[in-house]
């Protein structure tokens, strides 16, 4: 069963949502769903005490991804 919610976003936030939707070819619903999944999968790792790192393309720099 699907449920509906209303989001109150600033113009800047909505601008990002709309540009990401256009770039990824997703509806706003699908974009929020994907964002939730990514957030949960990263948060699950952090909750276990794991660290998440981001490495640059030439592998010369690696930084821990900080989630607030």
């Amino acid at each position, binding site marked *: 069963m699907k449920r509906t919610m209303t989001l109150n976003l600033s113009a800047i936030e909505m601008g990002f949502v709309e540009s990401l939707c256009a770039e*990824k*070819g*997703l*509806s706003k619903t*699908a974009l929020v*769903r*994907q964002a*939730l*999944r*990514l957030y*949960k*999968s*990263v948060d*699950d790792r952090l909750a276990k005490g794991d660290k998440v790192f981001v490495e640059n393309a030439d592998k010369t720099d690696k930084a821990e991804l900080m989630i607030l």
Partner: protein
Amino acid sequence: MKDLLGNIPLKNRISGEFENAELFHGIDTDNLAHIEGRWRPMFEHRKMEAKGSGKSLSDINAEDLHWQWGKKAIAAIQNPLVYDIFALECGGNTQAVMLVQKGGPKCFSRHEEHPRAPLVYLDFLSTAPWNRPIMVSEPVYKGCGRALISTAVSLSFEEEMCGRIGLHSLPKAEDFYRDQIGMSDLGVDDNYFNLRYFELPASQAFKMFNEI
């Protein structure tokens, strides 16, 4: 807990007839009992034989023998936001199972056609040992792997990901994904057990579904 998604005709290579397989979203204790009680003894028997004749798990088409589907089922039940698990049944037996991720760090495309676009990541796919060439001299059902890959592509369409799927292949399955499914081979991933990474781009997924 599982839900019937539909029926798929599978060719029984022994009888030459098509049989109606049932595709389920979710797996239950019956499926796990089939895997542990019917798949595993056959795998273990062939493993012992292979060991005696100096063959590797790859040589007997059993590189996934160590996968624990019970744990994977629990992961899918505990985290339905990210995971989906599917089972294919036919002839009173579990013929294949698949675990996919619908979101997370692995679900970004690396394909030049659509870099960073979202995709369904195919985490694990296994077919019953009696359906595997090399493992047995006369494999029974043909098309179990393809049926589950089509399910992943279909899920990707449903999730607005245009049919895109990605996966890391075990060495023995590389030819299948490359030549029979038509996935793009994007090379060895040195960040993931040195397995080759494959993707089905949106253009190929669209073609695949239009051919069916």
